[in-house]
């Protein structure tokens, strides 16, 4: 690897002085990272402000919790973890700027962060250029694989295929209406879903619609759904639109007694804003639900509530974010070093048997082996888990679905 | 209906059948008006008679509902404002409308009829010719000594003159003045009357004014407007003795 501070051009010699002035007195070890004998610095990069703060708050909290727990149990390689938190402010260039700051100025050993695909795409070249390490928690569209990123959420096929199979089998669904917010994740997800519905399930897609992010009027869409009478509405609406969508569906009398609906984008976090009563009986496909019944999860939920209050809710991404620091710890310990290249090399094959979702394993392609689950929305804002798949191999570049 | 016909040589300005209505209210109603070269015409009338609206219509600020305005053989009702100005119509507003942040010199220079298009203005040069012309006009409007004065420091009367001067820079064939002596001292009025008589040489002047003494001192002919129509027209004396005019002015 190139050392991080390249000073080859004579023009830059002058800047050395400045760099010395600005360096933060960090005693960098020979790996070029902010690691001292007692401390290792990591970065946390989420939106604490702006429109995405709604979604990213849970991730911030979960990562903090995991880091505290690791520190309480003795840290990593004898060092306590120190966190530098940066606010991406829901603004992609800010993400890029802060990512660079974390890697270049703070010399963090790993970054836990990003939520939207857009923010990840904005920071990705920086992580690759500066050879950083990012743990990315959100379920996303796939079509990406980077040496410098570990994806702790599900890629699209993991989330979609099993759930479609399940709904086709248990509900005998043949016709589908696809609806999403207008950006890459819903569009890619729907593309995969359509291929699967048409080629594997031999069903038909009777409608496909995308609405701008932040759209709040779904009356026309609801009427279209009523007209087409699909067996299943397959939804990936996000953000504030999500709330409007389900409230208006319910108000228009489209509820679970009349219509089967399967969503990819509603976790416990979103339900808080939507209100469980507005979508009771609908289904969501996730790898994790707060109500999951296993000892790991019970301990996790308890610890989370102890720290953030008894009303705190935990969604899929929150749990995936919680995995990040633990996966990193396991890889660092396996590698015996904080060096990014060594940690990356050690990552594939890392297992986490203590994961709240049960069990995960890092794949060669930096995604996780995980199970897919279907939860039914309960009026109290929780999910009842009614189906659980086998462990699914991550496949970010699915053949036949592109 | 008062239709007044003239069989003189072709008038500079010929308004025929001019009508404009605002939401059904006819501010100017089937108006006919003809102005000759070298003539100073004063339009009088009670408030709301439509005097200012007539000026607005001529200079294109307001669009006519019907009728025609012929100026030197050009139909003004369809032309854009700046083309009307370039055709030779200059108009002074009721309240002095000058650029207060600029000096007298710059105010006059702004109206110099060159550099009127974007690129022209960008590369406009203050040539000796421009300076000479500005100084000439400044002397004419009694501001020859105040060229470097910031315009907002001028007295009200001087501002009125400055605006007239800005029009003179364009050397218009038809000069329209809306209440040019409002707010002026007696002395200034006399000077303005003299100014108007001087500059009406070689052009036509259309004035709206309330001050009858001033009107007497400049008008060649007077038109009385009432409710958007011509009530009377002729010499000051004939108009003043017209019973219809007296009734309108003195009221019921």
């Amino acid at each position: 690897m190139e050392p991080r501070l390249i000073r080859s051009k004579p023009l830059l010699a002058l800047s050395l002085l400045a760099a010395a002035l600005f360096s933060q007195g960090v005693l960098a070890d020979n790996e070029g990272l902010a690691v001292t004998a007692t401390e290792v610095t990591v970065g946390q990069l989420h939106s604490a402000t702006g429109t995405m703060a709604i979604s990213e708050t849970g991730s911030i909290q979960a990562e903090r919790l995991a880091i505290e727990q690791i520190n309480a149990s003795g840290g990593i390689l004898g060092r306590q973890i120190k966190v530098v938190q940066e606010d991406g402010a829901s603004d992609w260039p800010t993400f890029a700027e802060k990512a660079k700051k974390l890697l270049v100025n703070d010399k963090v050993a790993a970054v836990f962060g990003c939520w939207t695909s857009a923010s990840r795409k904005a920071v990705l070249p920086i992580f690759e250029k500066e050879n950083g390490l990012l743990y990315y928690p959100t379920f996303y569209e796939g079509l990406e694989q980077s040496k410098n990123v570990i994806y702790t959420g599900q890629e699209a096929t993991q989330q979609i295929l099993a759930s479609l199979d399940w709904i086709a089998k248990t509900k005998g669904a043949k016709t589908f209406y696809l609806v999403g917010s207008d950006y890459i994740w819903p569009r890619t997800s729907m593309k995969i879903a359509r291929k699967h519905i048409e080629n594997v399930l031999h069903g038909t897609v009777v409608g496909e619609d995308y609405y701008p992010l932040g759209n709040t009027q779904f009356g026309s869409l609801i009427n279209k759904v009523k007209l087409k009478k699909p067996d299943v509405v397959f939804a990936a609406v996000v953000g504030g639109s999500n709330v409007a969508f389900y409230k208006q569906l319910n108000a228009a009398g489209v509820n679970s007694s009349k219509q089967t609906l399967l969503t990819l984008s509603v976790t416990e976090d979103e339900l808080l804003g939507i209100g469980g009563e507005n979508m009771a009986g609908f289904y969501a496909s996730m790898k994790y639900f707060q109500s999951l019944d296993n000892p790991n999860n019970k301990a996790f939920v308890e610890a989370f509530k102890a720290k953030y209050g008894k009303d705190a809710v935990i969604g899929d991404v929150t749990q995936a974010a919680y995995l990040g620091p633990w996966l990193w710890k396991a890889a660092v310990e396996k590698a015996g070093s904080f060096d990014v290249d060594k940690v990356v090399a050690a990552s594939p094959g890392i297992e986490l048997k203590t994961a709240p979702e049960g069990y995960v394993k890092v794949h060669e392609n930096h995604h996780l082996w995980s199970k897919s689950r279907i939860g039914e929305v309960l009026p109290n804002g929780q999910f009842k888990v009614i189906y659980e798949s086998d462990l699914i191999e991550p496949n970010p570049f699915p053949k036949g679905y592109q | 209906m008062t239709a007044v016909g003239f069989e003189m040589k072709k008038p500079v300005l010929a308004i025929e059948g001019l009508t404009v209505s605002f939401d059904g209210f006819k501010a100017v109603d089937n108006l006919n008006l003809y102005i000759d070269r070298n003539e100073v015409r004063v339009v009088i009338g009670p408030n709301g008679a439509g005097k200012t609206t007539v000026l607005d219509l001529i200079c294109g600020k307001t669009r006519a509902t019907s009728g025609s305005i012929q100026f030197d053989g050009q139909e003004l009702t369809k032309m854009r404002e700046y083309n009307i100005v370039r055709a030779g119509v200059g108009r002074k507003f009721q309240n002095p409308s000058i650029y207060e942040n600029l000096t007298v010199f710059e105010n006059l220079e702004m109206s110099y009829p060159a550099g009127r298009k974007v690129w022209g203005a960008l590369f406009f040069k203050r040539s000796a010719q421009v300076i000479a012309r500005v100084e000439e006009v400044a002397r004419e409007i009694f501001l020859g000594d105040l060229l470097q004065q910031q315009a907002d420091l001028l007295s009200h009367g001087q501002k009125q003159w400055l605006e007239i001067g800005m029009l003179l820079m364009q050397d218009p064939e038809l000069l329209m003045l809306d209440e040019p002596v409002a707010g002026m001292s007696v002395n200034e009025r006399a000077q303005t009357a003299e100014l108007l008589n001087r500059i009406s040489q070689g052009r036509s002047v259309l004035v709206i004014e309330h001050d009858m003494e001033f009107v007497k001192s400049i008008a060649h002919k007077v038109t009385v407007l009432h409710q958007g129509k011509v009530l009377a027209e002729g010499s000051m004396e004939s108009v003043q003795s017209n019973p219809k005019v007296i009734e309108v002015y003195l009221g019921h």
Partner: protein
Amino acid sequence: MKALDKLLGGQQNLIGIMLLAVLILVVFPLTLDAFRLNMVGKYLTYAFVAVGLVLCWGYGGILSLGQGVFFGVGGYCMAMFLKLEASDPQSTKIQSTPGIPDFMDWNQITELPWLWQPFHSFTFTVFAVIAVPVLLAFIIGIALFKRRVGDVYFSIVTQAIALILTVLIVGQQGLTGGVNGITDLKTLLGWDLRTDSAKMILYFISAGLLFGCIFIGRFILASKLGRLLMAMRDKEERVRFSGYDVASFKIFVFCVAAAFSAIGGAMFALQVGFMSPSFVGIVPSIEMVIFAAVGGRMSLLGAVYGALLVNYGKTYFSESFPELWLYLMGGLFIAVVMYFPNGLAGLWDSHGRQALAKLLRRKPAPKAEIAPVTPKAETKILETQP
């Protein structure tokens, strides 16, 4: 002689511009590390927009709330070229269709769309960076100014245009990269943009272009056209009835502002390495107005300081006080607008200059570049509302 003096805005402003040049060309490169310098470089790209806004808003009275549109279009033109260069068949061989940008491949596009074809040429790209936004501004200008859409209406319509363009870019993701934008730009004509030396050179190019724009702005303001702009802002009717086609001057200055913004956008894409619809929308567009307002809407140099300061503040406060920075930003905007309508430049003129003069034991400076924004100047907006 006089013309040159005027161009530089007199001795006082010559000093001002020298100071700024020293700050940007000497002080920053010497004291900041590569990362911080790159950030300043990014702020400078916003300064282009702010300088344009001084011309069209401060002097012309045209408040455009859609400058992000031009910044974005300029940036997208540049990003398209860079993306094509980054998407050569070799480095995209894992795609189903190698040789096209990755996001197109994800959207099942198998052939480069015609809109992208000309962006293989660098010459065309440089031309398009300026020409496309200017053409857009020209069309918007013709449509709105010729029809005399009023000041406030103009602001709101430009805002709606910003919204439309954002929705379009996000919706046409096969063509534009959608909400993610065009990312992962690597090289310019084979020159790796991601190295520190490249960033340093780009920084100086940005600074040079920015000073170019300031000089163009100075030239415009010093010409008769500059005086006409102010005259139009304060007495539009008088100008119109002095034989000027008011709309054409507004269109001109709007186009100039658009061109400046577009250069900023292109430099942004080069320095930051991506372009996304988040620069096109309403929020960034208003923020750009704020840069100009904080710096001083009547001062070309002030706009640069405004852009630097507000962005630095944003970075600093969001790093140090993530909870508080929106309060601080909001408070700053309110304070500037309410109490310092001439921004930093106004403060400098009313206080700083004298203090400096005293310090140097010289007579206070004569006349400022800044003509004060008289509240009177804007009352007419209220009055001419129907």
